[in-house]
């Protein structure tokens, strides 16, 4: 488990409502409305907390005929706090985690539900958003300029700027009117 994952668990547990939800789930699996009734919370508030608990890996859900049932993830909760503290951080993993966090921050700030809100002014950030968009292109497939524009326009209206920037960032290559995605070398 990474340090960030550990912190996410502690943060999750540091809210009384979530602690009460876990206590209720430790007795039996339950659905949102039942938990809401038991803890005197609104169903919407319970769903909010369940989302956080699920993201932290503390609960899991499964579908039954009528309801989505939630159950506690006993494996994670059995790990002792001492084990979590003792876990030795791996430098490469820390660096990787930092980069992933930065990347996620940029993506969250510039995209909303898959649409680009604006083009970042910083080159490093723009590179990240271009990498997200280029994922919509297949490798070893040739695209006409019109096809490229249509794909990019799905993310952002100013497809000309993004198309040009993808070329200059070497994410796409072109020859005449034909474009293709470039395989990135592993670093």
């Amino acid at each position, binding site marked *: 488990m990474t340090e960030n994952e550990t912190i996410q668990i502690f943060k999750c547990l*540091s*809210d*009384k*409502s*979530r602690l009460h939800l876990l206590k209720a789930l430790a007795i039996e699996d339950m659905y949102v409305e039942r938990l809401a009734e038991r803890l005197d919370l609104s169903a*919407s*508030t319970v*769903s*909010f*907390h*369940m*989302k*956080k608990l699920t993201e932290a890996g503390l609960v899991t859900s499964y579908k039954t005929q009528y309801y989505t049932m939630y159950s506690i993830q006993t494996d994670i909760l059995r790990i002792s706090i001492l084990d979590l503290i003792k876990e030795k951080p791996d430098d490469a993993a820390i660096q990787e985690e930092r980069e992933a966090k930065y990347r996620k921050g940029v993506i969250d700030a510039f995209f909303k*539900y898959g649409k680009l809100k604006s083009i970042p002014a910083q080159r490093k950030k723009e590179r990240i958003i271009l990498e997200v968009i280029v994922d919509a292109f297949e490798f070893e497939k040739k695209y006409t300029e019109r096809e490229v524009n249509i794909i990019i326009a799905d993310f952002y209206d100013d497809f000309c700027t993004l198309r040009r920037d993808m070329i200059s960032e070497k994410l796409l290559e072109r020859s005449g009117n034909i474009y293709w995605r470039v395989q990135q070398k592993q670093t």
Partner: protein
Amino acid sequence: MDSKALEYLEQRRAHCANERKRLQEEGYGDEADFEKIKENVYDIFKTVLLVARKQYGDDQTKICGFFREKLEQIPSGWRAAYEEAKDHDDIKAMHIENIKLGVAEDIKKNIFQEEGEKR
């Protein structure tokens, strides 16, 4: 309408601020944040009312019209954000928009219901 409405908005805002403090102290961090959202919404409409007062002086009809219009206009953005979040199954955003819409409904119900009863 405006002085009673203003009093109501201020009362609710203060109540949310107290609740937020209490919840924070009792370890309900996220619920405290939800109260902060409510507090902000009451504050927004309090500002709207003060702007209306400044703009229309003692003209209660115009103040009421302006306030009603904003009470429809501002939450329409929240409603759209709620629907968008729902389309993307974004439970956290749905909950937050729902809280804001709930406060707008409360204001509508309490301020204008009283107005209706008077008429």
